[in-house]
């Protein structure tokens, strides 16, 4: 019996953001936008969804008088990502049999 894939993570842009954040300590909004080639508006919405799910922490601050948004994955986010990857592997592993 397969576990359902986490609907929060099983979306292209949100998964891309979480995959970037799992590899780094923290990243600025501009970095995430550049690496995901997304629009600022769309990325903001998806970041908010990840934040609401408790998967990432978002800190808003000022850097040289410009607003800066810094994102960081939470422990809950790491756990969800690991479970998601493990579910994916079981889906794909079974598909290959």
């Amino acid at each position, binding site marked *: 019996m397969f576990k359902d*894939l986490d609907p929060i993570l*099983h*979306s*292209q*842009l*949100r*998964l*891309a953001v979480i*995959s*970037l954040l*799992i*590899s*780094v*300590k*923290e*990243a*600025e909004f*501009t*970095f995430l936008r*550049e*690496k*995901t*080639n*997304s629009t600022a508006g*769309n990325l903001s*919405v*998806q970041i908010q969804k990840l934040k609401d799910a408790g998967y990432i922490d978002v800190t808003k601050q000022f*850097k*040289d008088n410009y607003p800066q948004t810094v994102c960081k994955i939470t422990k809950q986010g790491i756990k969800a990502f690991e479970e998601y*990857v493990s579910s*994916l592997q079981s*889906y*794909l592993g079974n*598909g290959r049999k």
Partner: protein
Amino acid sequence: MEEKKITEQESLDLITTMIKKAKNAYHDTGMSAIMWGAVVALCSLVKYSEIQFRYRLPFDIYLLTIVAIIPQVFISIRENKERTVKSYDDNYMDYIWLGFGICIALMIMIVTVMSNHWQPVADEYSKLSGKTSSFQLYEFVSPLFLLLYGLPTFITGAACKFKPMLWGGILCWVCCVISVFTGAKIDLILVAVSAVFAWLIPGIILEKDYRAAKKGLEQAHV
């Protein structure tokens, strides 16, 4: 990239791509390595020329290493401002190089105190025996510094999989061993060679890579 549902295989491919992108995200500017490589090599070569050509500058050339802390602070501030992502590796590397700086400061203090204690003994020996002591403390100062130079350079090279720095670190230790058996004049040349190969050349390579990455990024945004 949009907010859309994807297949399981696409998910796995996306995760792999993003992790790779994150890993290649940060490029060191190489400025610190270039500056310290040049400063240490210059100080050693000037000191060598002072001994070789029997002249003395009105100040100790090694004071330049203290002056170099000022541009280093500005380089660090600028690099931190430009950095849009912080990796776990960056954090460890910062601590390793900070620890190295502290070790160098402590080593200078230890060597100065030792030298102040040893000099009266050497002077008394010369007075009593009429010969200069065959043991000169300054002959063993360079190996100690080369020992320290090798450690953070080797770790950085190995951790960042950057071979020029890895080999540079090893070269520092090779020069350390050689300098134990050579005179102070040759030791200074060995220190200069180590600084050039461990920091200056890797720094130039890093700076070139940084420029290329920045140019690539600018073109991608056009």
